[in-house]
């Protein structure tokens, strides 16, 4: 259902090569349409629990996926659908997970907040804020230990910068010079709390020197720029085992989760950020710089719409996990006993 992961080498792309632009736009739009389909299903009461949408931040996952080599890993938060789609997970399996179905990405065990797809390089969506940061450091520790040349990319919200586990994980990565890139997706709010009420500083990368990390910081307006600057950090991690701390200034266009009306932000503010929407920018570039026609853009959107309809259809028609499934998977022995189908 989804295109395979594109194993492009990690060199920055100069200019807006049409094919690359088309690919990035396609991927960003797929994430957006996936999230919109999920939101609709949620509003219709077809899915439940917490649903944190990635709308507005798609360029980050798409740029990242484009830079990853086999063996590289992404570790992220509960806002994880975007990475799953960008990394080539089947959108039907992703949607089925939200529906709590047997065919879901993790068999209905985890739901929205806990996407895992090891094959595709998605080493997890984690839901205890900051809890994944030392785990990501551990993946990088293993890479250095094994000499496998892999890079771990750890994504976290700016809200996760203030909790102990994050500090300890980053501290160890710096101390031991591990091949990891920590990427703060600063979407300006941790639930209803704006950055200025979270931290005494404006620029979160001021912490990098304390961990002996390099740093970079930019507004995510353009997927190419984001890709090129992330590429430098990844290369540094891969070639020199030099960890870095990156702060991406971005925005979630929706509430924190589906239950948050987001009343703490003015419409003006949201609109201003929407003007910098990298998806929109890519569309303008396609149209204005490359002369891609409206019809072609509409046709693309329609194809993606069909993919998402099919994903929803797949999720809805999939069976529930069988009752015994709840006892499986806790121990290695469980899966062996169940004939490997745990």
């Amino acid at each position: 259902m989804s295109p395979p992961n594109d194993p492009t080498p990690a060199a920055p792309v100069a200019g807006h090569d049409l094919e690359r632009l088309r690919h990035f736009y396609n991927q960003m739009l797929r994430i957006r349409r996936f999230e919109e389909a999920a939101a609709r299903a949620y509003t219709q009461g077809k899915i439940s629990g917490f649903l944190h949408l990635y709308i507005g931040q798609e360029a980050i996952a798409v740029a990242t996926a484009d830079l990853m080599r086999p063996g590289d890993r992404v570790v992220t938060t509960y806002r994880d659908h975007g990475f799953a789609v960008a990394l080539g997970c089947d959108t039907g399996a992703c949607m089925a997970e939200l529906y709590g179905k047997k065919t879901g990405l993790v068999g209905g065990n985890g739901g929205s907040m806990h996407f895992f797809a090891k094959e595709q390089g998605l080493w997890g969506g984690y839901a205890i804020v900051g809890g994944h940061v030392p785990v990501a450091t551990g993946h990088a520790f293993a890479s250095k230990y094994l000499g496998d040349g892999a890079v771990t990319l750890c994504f976290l919200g700016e809200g996760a910068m203030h909790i102990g586990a994050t500090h300890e994980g980053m501290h160890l990565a710096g101390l031991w010079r591990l091949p990891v890139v920590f990427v703060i997706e600063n979407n300006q709010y941790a639930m209803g709390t704006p950055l200025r009420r979270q931290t005494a500083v404006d620029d979160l990368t001021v912490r990098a020197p304390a961990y002996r990390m390099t740093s970079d910081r930019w507004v995510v307006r353009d997927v190419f720029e984001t890709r090129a600057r992330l590429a430098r950090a990844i290369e540094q991690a891969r070639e020199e085992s030099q960890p870095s701390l990156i702060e991406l200034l971005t925005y979630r266009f929706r509430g924190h989760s589906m239950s948050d009306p987001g009343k703490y932000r003015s419409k003006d503010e949201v609109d201003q950020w929407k003007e910098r929407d990298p998806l929109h920018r890519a569309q303008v570039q396609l149209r204005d710089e490359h002369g891609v026609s409206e019809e072609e853009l509409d046709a693309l959107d329609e194809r993606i719409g069909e993919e998402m309809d099919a994903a929803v259809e797949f999720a809805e028609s999939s069976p529930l996990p069988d009752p015994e499934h709840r006892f499986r998977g806790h121990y290695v022995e469980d899966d062996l006993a169940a004939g490997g189908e745990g």
Partner: protein
Amino acid sequence: MTVLQIREALRAAIDEEMARDDRVFVMGEEVGHYDGAYKVTEGLLAKYGEQRVVDTPIAEAGFAGVGIGAAMAGLRPIVEFMTFNFSAVAFDQILNNAAKLRQLSNGQFTLPIVFRGPNAAAHMLSSTHSQAFESFYCGFPGVKVISVATPYDAKGLLKSAIRDDNPVLFFESEVMYSVKGEVPDEEYLIPIGKADIKRPGEGITVITWGQGVPVALAAAELAARDGLDCEVIDLRTLRPLDDEAVLASVRKTNRAVLVYHGWPYGGTGAEVSDRIQRLAFDHLDAPIERVCYDDVNMPYAENLEQLVIPSPERALEVIRKVAYYRI
């Protein structure tokens, strides 16, 4: 009497205690400007200002510890965990500081602090967000542990917890915040350490607390159709346990079932059954049974979650078994 939701009763308790004593303050994530993730603290920032309604970053170990330090220095913090799942990262502060410092210092410090928030499974939040923590916190001395299931109990016990000079863990339920009930207009306190008979009966003692209470009451209702007369005891305080209330009932009914949200291994359910078998052994006509979570991580899928969480039907089966009832 006024009819209040549990969240409103909790808010009224906090409000009254803040008005009564200006050393009482609230601290936690989204408690102020956002009016509380579950709206328990709604309006308190507007009324008391930022000094007394303190929004924190996501730093549970930090603000739990700050609360402990402030309590040692004379304040009376109410620390909200957005849910008790997130108290896991503050566990060290509660275990090694809150619970220990009074005795370690040979009584030089008192720690009048309340840690409160919703606990146990809500709906489809999967394993990291569905955990019942009371058994962890009941497992060591130095703290008191309360779990409430009605607006009346919520208000009366939270006020007592705030006035208590010891650290208190106070458990609420996300899925029960909107449950309504009558609350007296005049001030009242409910003593810590006293269970409450939520339904009197003669045949089987059903012991429960927190989110288990509505399940136990519904099961008792179903059992009544079989002619089984359950006495439902809401422990309300889990540490110290009200042994007398439980034992008095079991001496009368000779049978006991526990219904609660939480894992079966160890914990409060196991502790209560141990006390019954030790202290009322001669009165028992059947093994003590427990209706709780399966011993699994909470799955996300709704159908599986419903199987893991105790239901009135599952409790009824066990009540019948303990009563040697045959259909």
